């Protein structure tokens, strides 16, 4: 099944042209501009944003839309995976060593996730890293033979997966109703609003990652439909 030779000749040519133009654009973008950059504006406003870590304040305050839509993308991907069919059969039960190792690693991962969530306000960390830790805990449990990767029953899974998007959206709409504009946090309580959004987003990201790893509709729904 070799691809035709014309393709093998044309693709490098296309890539070369693409690479040259993109490389020129990269070089030009790096040294061509000398005015004020967006980074300076953002870094100046960080103390007012409710989080002292610049990446967190960009994610949840300055570019809140982006993160909201990103959570919606995650939810959509999960809906797509769930609509394609039931989850794969669980992994075989683990041996003694793996089982006791999992008993140590999973609580540690969950604690690390909570720590990363809290520390995200002023140091590297935040909802995505914490969600990744929860996801890793669930994947570890799944690989050790747990049928649902530690996830609760199916209605709870649906609620948890949608929670991040829902809270984020309701927060934005609520702030709009209070006259402050969509996702424009009042200065005094910004820290707490961001923390609520981050905590729910962490749960949602973790649950979505685990459910995506399981790769299909939750078990209870499958049993009911058959």
């Amino acid at each position, binding site marked *: 099944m070799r691809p035709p030779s014309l393709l093998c000749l044309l693709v490098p040519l296309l890539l070369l042209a693409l690479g040259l133009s993109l490389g020129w654009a*990269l070089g030009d973008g790096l040294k061509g501009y000398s005015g004020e950059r967006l980074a300076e504006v*953002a870094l100046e406003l*960080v103390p007012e944003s409710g989080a002292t870590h*610049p990446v967190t304040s960009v994610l949840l305050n300055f570019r809140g839309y982006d993160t909201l839509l*990103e959570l919606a993308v995650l939810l959509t991907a999960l809906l797509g995976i769930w609509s394609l069919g039931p989850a794969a059969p669980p992994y075989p039960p683990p041996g003694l060593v793996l089982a006791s190792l999992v008993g140590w690693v999973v609580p540690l991962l969950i604690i690390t996730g909570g720590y990363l969530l809290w520390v995200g306000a002023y140091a590297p960390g935040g909802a*995505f890293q914490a969600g990744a830790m929860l996801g890793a805990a669930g994947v570890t449990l799944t690989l050790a033979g747990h049928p649902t990767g530690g996830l609760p029953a199916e209605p709870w899974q649906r609620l948890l997966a949608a929670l991040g998007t829902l809270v984020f959206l309701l927060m934005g709409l609520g702030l709009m109703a209070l006259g402050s504009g969509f996702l424009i946090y009042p200065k005094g309580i910004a820290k707490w609003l961001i923390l609520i959004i981050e905590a729910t987003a962490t749960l949602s990201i973790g649950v979505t990652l685990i459910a995506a790893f399981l790769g299909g509709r939750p078990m209870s729904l499958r049993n009911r439909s058959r």
Partner: protein
Amino acid sequence: MNPEILITQMLYGCIGLALFLLGIGSFILHEGLWRRLIALNVVGSGVFHVLVAVAYRGLEQTPDPIPHALVLTGIVVAVSATALALAFGRHLEDQNDHA
């Protein structure tokens, strides 16, 4: 801007570009869901790498947080897309088995 920082940015930016091109070439030329998914992920990594390189401002200075936020969301979107693609692939194989 400091030439040393510019050189580092250019070096890593060009590596990111090379990853992007390699991934696209592999995506076009190779067959099979596997190789294409890996190629797609390498393309994504290349794009992220360019963004991280552009955000670099030297070892002493805080890097640009905006590309970092973009990459952070991008990584999570990439993994969900990969999971969706794998689910599609599995579904297709099941359909072919039944047919």
